């Protein structure tokens, strides 16, 4: 198949609130190709997580998709009935959430939580005692896959009895239990210690190699994305502001927001360089600025920035939403 694995076109997600309609995602276009690792970067409230919750139909009511289309393997999946979405979830597209401690059910053992996922998608399992044995073996195999020692013993554990890194691995094991084609890793390292962060990221990279699973790495940390993703999408206030091959975007960012993100990361290579946070607050999601959403915080802002602007393509498969880029 030649087209992208996942294709999002003009996605808009809204959350009605008392203060008005929150436009969490507003006209997002992106695609994920088979086997690649795509980084999606932005600060909290940029709409990066919401975009992918929408893909799986996991928006919490009253949040809803207002416009746009989501296609998976060429088939439109936005607006599918719940029963058909359920077929996709976990089997074709899986997700891991930020904090495994809250994402795993505290009252169920690791085994129960892995096994129920397999059972939900495999109609060919035998009945009776053989079923139990097969499921247990598969669960152990998955724990081994994500590098958990003594899998037989861990199966009986409850989430709170495991370490943070171990919990994250269990969640990844659950997500991979049906060999999905696409894994969405939502902030996989945010809840972890730095040393464990690297281990989990390496594990994801290794699993992508071994299983050929495409991975979307959603993160607020450009550094994490830089190391592991071939392509990156930078989001701000519900929109894509820049995208392209990671090396090019980081080497020569074309949107002032991307530059700001880079400057706000401490660098080991240049310890003397000052860390400069981006001044100001994220745009109001109910009444966003009419033109470029970053304009109120941008040091380069000029009157033209107050006019609506689309993503402008740049050579080398890149694009940026900035008047600086020649239209």
């Amino acid at each position, binding site marked *: 198949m030649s087209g992208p694995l996942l294709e999002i076109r003009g996605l808009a997600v809204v959350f009605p609130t008392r203060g008005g309609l929150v436009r969490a995602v507003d006209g997002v276009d992106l695609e994920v190709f088979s086997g690649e690792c795509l980084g999606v970067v932005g600060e909290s409230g940029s709409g990066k997580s919401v975009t992918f919750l929408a893909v799986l139909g*996991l928006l919490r009511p009253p949040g809803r998709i207002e416009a746009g289309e989501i296609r998976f393997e060429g088939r439109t999946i936005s607006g599918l009935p719940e029963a058909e979405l359920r077929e996709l979830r*976990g089997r074709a597209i*899986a997700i891991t959430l930020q904090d495994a401690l809250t994402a795993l059910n505290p009252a169920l053992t690791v085994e129960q939580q892995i096994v129920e*996922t397999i059972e*939900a998608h495999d109609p060919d399992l035998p009945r009776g005692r053989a079923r139990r044995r097969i499921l247990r073996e598969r669960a152990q195999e998955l724990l081994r896959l994500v590098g958990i020692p003594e899998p037989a013993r861990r199966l009986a554990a409850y989430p709170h009895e495991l370490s943070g890194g171990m919990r994250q691995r269990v969640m990844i094991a659950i997500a991979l239990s049906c060999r999905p084609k696409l894994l969405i890793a939502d902030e996989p390292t945010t809840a972890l210690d730095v040393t464990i962060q690297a281990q989990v990221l390496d594990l994801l990279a290794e699993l992508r190699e071994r299983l050929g699973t495409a991975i979307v790495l959603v993160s607020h940390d450009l550094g994490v994305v830089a190391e592991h993703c071939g392509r990156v999408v930078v989001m701000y206030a519900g929109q894509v502001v820049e995208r392209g091959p990671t090396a090019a975007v980081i080497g020569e960012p074309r949107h002032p927001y991307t530059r700001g993100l880079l400057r706000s990361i401490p660098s080991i290579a240049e310890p003397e360089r000052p860390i400069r946070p981006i001044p100001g607050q994220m745009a109001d999601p109910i009444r966003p600025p009419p033109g470029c959403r970053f304009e109120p915080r941008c040091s380069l802002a000029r009157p033209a920035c107050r006019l609506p602007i689309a993503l402008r393509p740049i050579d080398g498969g890149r694009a940026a939403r900035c008047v600086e880029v020649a239209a």
Partner: protein
Amino acid sequence: MRPSALLERLLQLVPVLLGIALVVFLMMQATPGDPVELMLGDALATPEQREALRRDMGLDRPLPERFLHFLGNAATLDFGQSFHHRRPVADVILERLPATIELTLAAMAIAIAVGVPLGVVAAVRRDGWIDRLATILGLAGVSMPGFWLGILLILLFSVQLGWLPVSGRIGFGAEVPPVTGLLLVDTLLAGRPASFLEALRHLLLPAVTLGLAMAALLMRVTRTSMLEALRQDYVTFATAKGLPRRRVLIRHALRNALTPTVTVAAIETGTLLGGNMIVETVFGWPGLGRLVVEGIFTRNYPLVQAAVLLYAVTYVLLNLLADVLQTVLNPKVRL
């Protein structure tokens, strides 16, 4: 849960129960009125006779000694004579207790069967018509006095429709030899299905009267905690795994949401086991509630004392039961 932890918790109850016994004992000492006068009533007695009775009852001994005596008696369920009945208090209470237990179990069964599913549906379909209806009914159920609902039910089902009996536990001629005291069980043990139905028909209205109020409470508690559970990440993650909706709701959300429901149900069971004087009066139910309230009015101290002790022990045990159930529901909780 480790058996040793349970044993530890049971041992911890000993000082609690001793404390309760002390409070009950002191309470009775502090209440006005001379037990001897009360016992004699209007009967004429010489001062010597009064003194003899006082000695008989051990009232001339020092307080600590009397407390130890009280404890020893309580341990063997000897609470003295009921003034009014002129029979051992334990016998009088045990005679009434099964009726109250039966009514409590039936009411709680109704409350759980109605309240928990309704609370779940109300939370899942938040702001839908079931939720709105349940909220209104819940408010009505909590605020409607038991005697009012009871009388309405009697008027409708007994007087108007004539489907169900007005009062009592079982009809004449349907009685069976007591084994457990629970008529639903005893009639079956006696192999008398007709009597079983008769007992069930008598039980229905009082159980519904008590059960609906409790159902309203459980519904509200379940709805609230279910809404909370539905917001949790593990529910999102369970959905993302592709599990069927029903499984997500029951295995993931409800299971975690039941914690407060179980606690409330256990405490309310304790309240119900004390007997409900009003409902028992309306339905002529020979339970504990009326007995104890009458005992209070007639200053039947030994009876009231034993009843208070019984209530306290029941509460303590039900609390322990609630804690044990918590450990089953939530492995993070340890006894």
